[in-house]
């Protein structure tokens, strides 16, 4: 059973009709096949129309879609011999951020990313992808490991934000995020980041300070959630839609402002309609970006990474 978003209702209706007709077609009616074909063309056209002009708020919903592929799906689809590594060595293992070693296109690498979970149980286990300081400290540890063994790092970002909890504050959430961003800017090995769903604020940038930052076509990336922004600036979360527009959180906006380096196309109707295709698409983009920086001298690569961030906003006219 497919999960439809509210704005997908007309598509859902059409697809429901197609399902019904298919049921009838099983009973041997001949004219029905024609009708199904027509409806399918119509549904696809509608899907294309809807998805080529998604509003920022609609993109927020797509980016958070429960069926959207998550970190573990990308690892499953793209990384061979994945070996998860756990723990921050100080306090705990935080499953909101997963990481480990594996092979990407045959080359050993370190992969780190937020995992949101796909059902109630796994969402609780992964804390909905909202990491505590330990998650960021584990990421730091894994980046150090990568740097030590000259392995490129791939980070996949998908979080509403770092977890706002008492313990998280107590154990230095701010410091952990700051150090993780610092580590991204410190390692000499290649670091390619991709926003695969939600890039939520500091919790995202802590993993997304890469040589190259990619975004999936319908992913979002922002300093604050539209709801949070609305409740502060509009004094009511009901203005989230307006906030989503003002924040310029879409991949298309961010590419225009040179915040990201590339947009990774999603299958028609979004990554959730065809996760395998989305993962494939991401794999190709990651490979291409890695190739650009793989053969650089480590020091030069790091200097280039830092320069890239320093240049942001300077030529933004």
């Amino acid at each position, binding site marked *: 059973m497919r999960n439809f978003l509210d704005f997908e209702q007309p598509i859902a209706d059409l697809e429901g009709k197609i399902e019904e007709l298919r049921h009838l077609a099983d009973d041997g009616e001949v004219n029905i096949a024609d009708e199904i074909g027509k409806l399918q063309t119509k549904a696809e056209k509608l899907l294309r129309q809807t998805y080529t002009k998604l509003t920022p708020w609609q993109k927020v919903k797509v980016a958070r879609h429960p069926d959207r592929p998550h970190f573990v799906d990308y690892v499953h689809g793209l990384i061979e011999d994945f070996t998860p590594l756990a723990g921050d060595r100080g306090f705990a293992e935080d499953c909101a951020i997963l990481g480990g070693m594996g092979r990407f296109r045959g080359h050993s690498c370190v992969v780190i990313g937020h995992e949101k979970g796909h059902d109630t149980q796994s969402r609780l286990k992964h804390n909905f992808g909202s990491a505590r300081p330990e998650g960021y400290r584990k990421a730091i540890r894994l980046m150090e490991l990568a740097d030590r063994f000259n392995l490129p790092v791939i980070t996949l970002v998908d979080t509403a934000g770092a977890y*706002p909890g*008492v313990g998280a*504050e107590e154990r230095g959430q701010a410091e952990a995020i700051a150090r993780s961003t610092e580590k991204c800017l410190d390692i000499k090995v290649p670091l390619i980041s991709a926003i695969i769903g939600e890039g939520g*604020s500091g919790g995202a940038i802590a993993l997304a300070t890469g040589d190259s930052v990619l975004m999936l076509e319908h992913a979002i990336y922002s300093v604050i959630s539209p709801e949070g922004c609305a409740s502060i600036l509009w004094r009511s979360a009901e203005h989230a839609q307006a906030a989503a527009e*003002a924040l310029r959180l879409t991949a298309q906006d961010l590419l225009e402002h040179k915040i990201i380096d590339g947009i990774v196309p999603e299958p028609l109707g979004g990554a959730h309609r065809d996760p395998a295709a989305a993962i494939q698409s991401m794999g190709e983009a990651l490979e291409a970006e890695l190739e650009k920086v793989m053969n650089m001298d480590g020091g030069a690569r790091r200097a280039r990474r830092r320069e890239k961030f320093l240049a942001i*906003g300077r030529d933004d006219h």
Partner: protein
Amino acid sequence: MNWLTNFVRPKIKALVGGKPDVPDNMWHKCPGCTQMIFHRDLTTNRHVCPHCDHHLRMPLLERMDMLFDNSAYNRIELPKVVSDPLKFRDRKRYTDRLKEARHATGEDDAVIVAHGKIGGSNAVIAGLNFDFMAGSMGTAVGEGIIAAARLAVVQKAPLIVIPASGGARMQESILSLMQMPRTTVAVQEVKEAGLPYIVLLTDPTTGGVSASFAMLGDIQIAEPGCLIGFAGRRVIEQTVREVLPDGFQTAEYLYDHGMIDMVVSRPELKDTLSGMIDLIMNPKPSGEVLPLTRESIEEHLEIPEEDGVDPDEKPIEQPITDAVGPRKAAD
């Protein structure tokens, strides 16, 4: 270096006494003990409540006066940035909010960078002005921190950063978020030049500011009672649905949890800062380099002649620093 001429144009303003006018007979209510304090008493007491020692927010320029030797410092002009790059509008236009903040504070944005001496050593201070849009961090603040870091590197001086910020400048959205890595690069430049990076956390330091340059200090100092944290209280309460512990996110709370080096009350700040800068920047108090010759040995160690040293022995050529002698440097 070209970029230097771009922004390091020392402007010696008549800063002492150049504050916005507040009538002397104005009263302030202390948030700590609710007693009324005369404005004049508050300024002479460095904005510390004379009744309960509560540290009220201190205007940034007064803070610079307090920290630099003889209250003497030069502000540097900061790079101009694109105003309102995203054409942001909530209930108000961002450009209007900026205009209001500029009018109210007489400043371009929320960051001020100055250099002078602290305890006799050159030092650069970058401070955030909470009165300017809650000290929020946008491109201008990021550029200010970067400029301060580069000035520190050029002057081979420590960088002291004094945050006072609600966090990200939401009206600059993603560009505000990008200041986290940008200011981190600035900190790295200072650290990699072998210079100390000291953070003085003041009330409040939260959000994207606390989660970037404000938490990366070689030394982390905080003022008593100030609020330091990543997430806002309200957000945490709504998420965890429990009563927050006493003193949550205060300087003392962070100290108890090992997140900062020290909590220093305002009257002690300058001496503490001077002392630490001196320890790091002048590791050998009598650091003049003396050639180790018979004369210098005799002069400093007072080796008596009758110890049987051969007067024709060649002087040892290797210069050593005078770390052994009891003499203090004249300078």
